[in-house]
């Protein structure tokens, strides 16, 4: 250790932080299929919610994992009247 490094003492924490951020970004994808499934669940539900109003109790979600296969079952009940309303609205915008 020389005089210069005494003044320079910048600490190693930023290095630790950066290494972790890079490592975990990778590991979350490769080691965490479950995380991916949870992400898919949230995004699929968000997409559905964007187009039709769905009551929380009309959604059934089942996530499972067996060996190397993860499963995600999403069961959404959408009342037909809402679909009709939606179709009419889309037709109207298409015509305009």
């Amino acid at each position, binding site marked *: 250790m020389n005089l210069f490094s005494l003044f320079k003492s910048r600490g*190693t924490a930023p290095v630790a932080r950066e290494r972790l951020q890079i*490592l975990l970004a990778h590991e979350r994808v490769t080691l965490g299929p479950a995380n991916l499934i949870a992400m898919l669940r949230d995004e699929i539900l968000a997409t559905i919610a964007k187009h039709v109003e769905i009551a929380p109790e009309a959604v059934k979600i089942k996530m499972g994992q067996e060996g190397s296969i993860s499963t995600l079952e999403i069961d959404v009940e959408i009342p037909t009247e809402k679909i009709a309303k939606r179709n009419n609205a889309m037709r109207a915008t298409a015509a305009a």
Partner: protein
Amino acid sequence: MSKVVVVTSGKGGVGKTTSTASIGAALAKSGKRVCVVDFDVGLRNLDLVMGAERRVVYDLINVAQGDAKLPQALIRDKRIDTLSLLAASQTRDKDALTEEGVKRVVEELRGMFDFILCDSPAGIERGALLAMRFADEAIVVTNPEVSSVRDSDRIIGLLDSKTLRAEQGQRMDKQLLLTRFDAARASRGEMLSVADVLDILSIPLLGIIPESEDILRASNLGAPITMNGSTSQASRSYEDAARRLVGEAVPMVVPGEKKSLFNRILGRRAA
């Protein structure tokens, strides 16, 4: 309404058992009925940290297998009568613990206690998965150190996928307990800061426990730090964490951060 909380970390030696005992004692002191359960089959230690190692007759596996009744196996603390311990078994057969058995024990405990704290073994094997399986929420114990943070990230992934709540599509609440934190070193950039760890793991913070000599003293004596009348910062930090766990809004202080300039200069020289 009883709550089952798993205390977990992935990495060993970060303070799961100490934290389970300390938060358990703090909750019990405030009048909550608390049971701390050791899930570390084969390497039980919670009994030792709680000072009850000579009182273990029956354990979790005995109850899970139906060889003993739960009230026979529960060890009531002699200092705080709302605090009980269910010890782990010393048997080497890790498969002795089954999911059905654990489910039954946890359900029975729910009927008797306000809080059930499950002290998870290290690792991501069967024991750790069983400890989190029936939990309502989780305390993730993490040191501000790269390997601990990495393992905590892994455990968070498992909490979001392998617990009953997650499989049913419900949210699993997870809170971070940062232990062995040294504010002086963090402020010098030698240790990950609280913000760093929160940023990386992105779960809410339950508490910050400073690195403290008093913790070792407490486990030497078999008296959790929140139990032995200690006024140390670590004890107060654990008490604050326990209060946050019951939903109280306790302002977060970074322990040891308010050092005088003089001490800070001394600290820098020494390091």
